């Protein structure tokens, strides 16, 4: 075991791991965090806490993680290189670990262009791969990037993201390989709607034996409505939503669309369970936390394993 991360234990045990997401509020009220988090208690193994997602200012990921930790939940710290240079990143990593946060995800982050601070400087001192590698060296060599020793290095279980659907497709596997090589222990993928394409990607992943080097969690997002399906298809960069899916959503009356979305998501999970190399699911129920439990249950993934 590299770390004490529950996630790592579950992966090691060969069971399907399950994570979900909790976006911090745009304000200083801790209860907002608690309410959302509470809904996830007992139905997932870890909760991603996003870092100024979509480049909008929110309560810092680290602070929110601490709140979750205090609730006895298992937070996963997301960090983007967009907003901090390597000094800030490292200090937050050790800071987090000092609070017992032992799992994190290294990302580059959405471009400020999309958020409410387009005028903000775009730091990108590091890219995500370099970030992963920096945290790995902090953990395994106990060294800051500057070379100095860290007394009590942070034993972080390191995650990263992968988008199997973005272009150029043929790069997507080696892109994963780079992250693995840099020291990522697991990855969470972009929401999967086009399962065929995902399977094609997994094939490539297996061919290179990457599924042995790195745990792959399939990203799942239930669609609330046909409108959301269309939006995802057309507006969200790097998202691959097949037409059939949009058709299927629009096919049913408004009030039934939510249910249809969940059906689709369950079918997808069912199919993915059968895909060799899928080590778990990352359930991104954006502003739909209250239905996570139901979904997990219907997916037959309850109860969650204990260690």
């Amino acid at each position: 075991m590299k770390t004490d991360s529950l996630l790592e234990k579950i992966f090691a045990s060969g069971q399907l791991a399950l994570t979900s997401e909790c976006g911090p509020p745009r304000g200083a009220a801790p209860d907002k965090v608690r309410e959302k988090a509470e809904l996830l208690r007992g139905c997932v193994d870890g909760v991603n806490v996003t870092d100024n997602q979509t480049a909008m200012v929110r309560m810092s990921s680290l602070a929110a993680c601490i709140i979750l930790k205090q609730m006895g939940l298992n937070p996963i710290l997301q960090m983007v290189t967009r907003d901090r240079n390597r000094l800030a990143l490292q200090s937050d990593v050790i800071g987090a670990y000092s609070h017992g946060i032992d799992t994190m995800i290294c990302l580059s982050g959405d471009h400020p262009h999309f958020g409410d601070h387009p005028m903000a400087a775009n730091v990108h001192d590091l890219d995500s791969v370099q970030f992963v590698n920096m945290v790995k060296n902090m953990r395994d060599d106990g060294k800051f990037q500057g070379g100095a020793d860290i007394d009590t290095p942070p034993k972080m279980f390191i995650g990263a993201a992968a988008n199997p659907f973005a272009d150029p497709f043929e790069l997507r596997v080696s892109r994963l390989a780079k992250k693995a090589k840099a020291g990522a222990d697991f990855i969470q993928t972009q929401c999967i709607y086009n399962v065929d394409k995902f399977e094609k990607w997994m094939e490539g992943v297996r061919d290179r034996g990457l599924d042995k080097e790195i745990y792959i969690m399939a990203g799942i997002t239930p669609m609330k409505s046909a409108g959301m399906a269309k939006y995802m298809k057309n507006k969200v960069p790097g998202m691959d939503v097949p037409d059939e899916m949009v058709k299927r959503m629009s096919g049913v009356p408004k009030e039934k669309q939510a249910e249809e979305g969940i059906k689709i998501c369950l079918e997808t999970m069912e199919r993915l369970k059968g895909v060799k190399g899928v080590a778990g699911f990352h359930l991104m129920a954006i502003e739909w936390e209250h239905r996570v439990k139901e979904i997990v249950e219907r997916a037959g993934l309850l109860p969650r394993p204990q260690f």
Partner: protein
Amino acid sequence: MITAERKPMEEILEYVRPCQRILLVGCNECVTVCAAGGRKEVGLLSSALQMAAMKEGRTLEVKEITLERQCDPEYVEELASQVGDAEAIVSMACGCGVQELARRYKSMRVYPAVNTKFMGASERQGVWAERCQGCGDCLLGITGGVCPIARCSKQLMNGPCGGSTKGKCEISQDVDCAWQLIWDRLKALGVEDRYEENIPAKDWRTGRGGGPRKIIREDLAQ
């Protein structure tokens, strides 16, 4: 080449409003090539400034002169005879030129008339695009001659982010995904495997990180 763009008229007018006589100085280098501050633009701006002044019921004398280069003291010296009773110098050169003028003509107010944009190349008539950020440690040798720092919105050095779609960047359809370009080049050159190498975190000291930079050629320096 350094590219630039004329400032909004109102900003320039704001500078010159108190003046009756100004010296409007163009530069025959980069800003001429990118049609921002050559003789022609000087002529246009001169007319515009004078008209704006007249419209406000003032008179503004504009003396137009275009130097070979504003970033070399010898050329800048040529202005000495021209300055005369001008109350301010308005420069249409890049920031380098403006500062060189300010350095040489200490008692003079020197105002920029253009915004210096970036180091770029002209894609076609009238279109210039950023190509280099002067990081001081060129990566092009391993990125197939396309710079991820200047041309990737997130300056990713290890491949395209998840937002790359059909060769375009997630921030705009008009921006090429640098990594798509890099990948295409690598394939074309048959060195795809080069992509596999992880490019380590960059040492920014060679760039702005190291503070204002200087180049000294011992063999040439006096």
